[in-house]
């Protein structure tokens, strides 16, 4: 075995970049064994060992920087939940990425994402002024002092053609539930969740501060989000920057409305439905029951569970910036979920995260399973059953 000399200035810099719990790690390897990359073959599976990456960070050694190593982490939190030392593994990964991001050495595939966020306030290279294009024909009210909730629509559902259906379905459902809400529109920027996970702290701060100034100026108190990633950021990362809001995922609002009988669901499109727990709704925000309660409030809906569900759910592969990186077919986590969903016998797979929809639907199509399984956002299932 080759002798390696620790470079402690580097490891100190990593800790300073946010990897505060780097030295808590005792190198037991439970994280690496738990990591969903162990469930698939391929380059990232072979290269990305989260325990070893942290060890290299502890020693300040080079060699972990590639797209399929440090940037393979989807921040799914499966390892964090189990870590016997309570190590903030995602924080450590973020800190190591931040050190690279500061000197501009993030993977090439992520550079246009950062560029678009800088110039347009969204990662999808969509013009800022078209942020509300998805609302056409829906007459979505603007947020005002009389509106209870700000509806914050994830950039993905503002620009991506498929994902816009989610934004529309959320609006339709909230309206049916009699919720008072409005949108802010073009002035708004991406919540910044993913870019922070990619390591660009400066860009995150810029986006977050711009949103906080905007919302505080408009008197926003309560926010409904369409994506659990935005939920995470608003709840966990905005308060220290001065943005303190009551934030809800739309499934929480709709489940509550259904429980109170404020929304009536017909059940005309119901049937056997299997649910994929998004990492950021489940493990990151501890919301497991709201989407299930919402499904079961649809008359005739028969909820099935994937073999790995709730806190044992397997990531779709889209978090931590991976939604913008290429993972070869045959090596994708989403394929595992599609297979599990088909094994469950249900014809519909619902989830409630725009990244999950993108990843799952793509894999379903690539696998040629679209005739066997329909991938839907829960908002779409609700809207279809109004």
């Amino acid at each position, binding site marked *: 075995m080759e002798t390696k000399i620790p470079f402690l200035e580097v490891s100190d810099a990593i800790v300073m970049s946010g990897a505060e719990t780097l030295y808590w790690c*005792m*190198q*037991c*390897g*439970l994280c*690496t*064994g*738990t990591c969903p990359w*162990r469930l698939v073959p391929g380059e990232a599976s072979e290269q990305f*060992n989260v*325990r*070893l990456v942290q060890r290299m960070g502890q020693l300040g050694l080079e060699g972990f920087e590639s797209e399929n190593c440090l940037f393979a982490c989807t921040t799914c939190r499966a390892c964090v*939940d*189990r*870590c*016997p*030392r*309570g190590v903030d593994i995602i924080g450590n990964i973020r800190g190591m990425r931040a050190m690279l991001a500061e000197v501009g050495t993030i993977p090439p595939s992520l550079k246009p994402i950062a560029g678009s966020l800088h110039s347009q306030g969204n990662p999808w290279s969509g013009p800022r002024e078209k942020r509300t294009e998805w609302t056409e024909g829906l007459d979505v009210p603007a947020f005002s002092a009389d509106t209870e909730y700000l509806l914050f629509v994830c950039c993905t559902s503002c620009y991506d053609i498929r994902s816009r259906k989610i934004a529309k379905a959320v609006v339709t459902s909230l309206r049916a539930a009699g919720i008072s809400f409005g949108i802010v529109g073009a002035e708004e920027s991406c919540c910044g969740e993913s870019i922070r996970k990619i390591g660009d702290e400066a860009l995150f701060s810029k986006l977050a501060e711009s949103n906080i100034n905007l919302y505080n100026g408009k008197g926003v108190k309560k926010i409904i989000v369409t994506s659990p990633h935005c939920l995470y950021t608003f709840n966990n990362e905005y308060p220290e920057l001065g943005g303190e809001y009551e934030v809800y995922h739309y499934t929480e609002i709709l489940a509550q409305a259904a429980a109170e009988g404020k929304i009536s669901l017909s059940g005309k499109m119901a049937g056997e439905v299997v649910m994929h727990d998004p990492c950021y709704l489940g493990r990151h925000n501890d919301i497991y029951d709201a989407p299930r309660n919402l499904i079961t409030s649809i008359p005739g809906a028969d909820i099935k569970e994937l073999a790995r569900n709730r806190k*044992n759910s397997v990531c779709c592969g889209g978090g931590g910036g991976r939604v913008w990186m290429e993972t070869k077919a045959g090596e994708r986590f989403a394929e595992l979920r599609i297979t599990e969903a088909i094994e469950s016998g249900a014809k519909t797979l619902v989830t409630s995260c725009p990244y999950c929809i993108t990843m799952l639907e793509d894999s379903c199509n690539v696998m040629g399973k679209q005739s066997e399984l329909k991938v839907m956002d829960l908002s779409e299932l609700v809207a279809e059953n109004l």
Partner: protein
Amino acid sequence: MGDENRKILVVGGGISGITAAIEAAEAGAEVTLIERNPYLGGRVTQLNQYFPKLCPPTCGLEINFRRIKQNPKISVYTLAEIESLSGSPGNYQAVLKLNPRYVNDNCTCCGKCSEVCETQIPNPVNYGMDTMPAAYLPHAMAFPFKYVLDPGIVGTEEARKCLDACKYNAIDLDMQPASLNLNVGSVVWATGWDPYEVEKVDYLGFGKYPDVITSVMFERLSAYNGPTGGKIIRPSDGKPVQSIALVQCAGSRDENHLAYCSGICCLASLKHATYLREKNPDSKVYMFYIDIRAMGKYEDFYVKVQSDENVVLTKSKIARVSIDRESGQMLVEGEDIGRSEKVKQLVDLVVLAVGMKPGTASCKPSLDMDYDDFGFVTGSGSSGLIPAGCVKAPMEVAASLQDSTAAALKAISTAMGR
């Protein structure tokens, strides 16, 4: 103060309580030893062999039982619990509840009651791995050497059949719970330990797969007086076990479960490796650990077991145990830290090395003692109760003996008001 005040109550009849009671009595104190089970010996009774000498615990227990029988200063109550406890050092009042055994001293252990009893109950000595008739001798070396009737059959036809089968008038179905008041000068608290509820570590598969068992169960599976007569076979299909995975720190050193190291499990698992290797020379043992903690003189035992080429030690905290549908074997997965490679090991049986939880985590005396976050006793506190053995820290039998001998001395001096 004279000898009459040197009365001591020892709570818990495991190896620590037995030792404290005998040591105090042999020094002249009058001791009452109480135990919740119908027999003395506690967890030690359930061990196959001690490490590192690999001798059977029944041998040492038998010597201790003889010391108890020969000493008129020790009164033993099994099936006994503390109903109330009050007072202070030098003067405690205890009320004991003595649960009925339904069998009196006439019992000769002929076993006729058991033969006619058709009701089967899980055998707690074997951690429920087998069942036994509801009229039973707790185990072959039980002390007191008397049968017991499970309260569940009392009042039924089963109990009547047992009564009719007994030629010695040893069965008394009218026995009632009794109360006993004691006035003692000191109290030793030696309520031992419980294995960690490892089903809480859901990714290790205990409770989900029959071929995943705990280390304490493996002691029984290897013991000649265990559920299989000492044959190490798979619980699922009874096939002889050719390979085992010994999974260390199954909940231990883990903030989500037991944040501490129990200190004995590595040695116990190394011992388990010898159980299988001895009984089946063609077998293979895979042990997965975070660190092997074989302290002090135990290092020699570790080195000895390690030298067996069919015992493979891998640094890995196991992340997943599942069933391999093709072979029906258990699949153990994790990361091999030394090689930075995947662990994917198929084995016949998975043994989870479970940590020790103090008895005081679930059941504390009514008088105050000081505890740490996990329920271990850190000091006698205002009550002056004297903790002994595993209620203070996880420890092996040898350390428990030393600790309880010290507790006996403390109990004598407390009872004498010194």
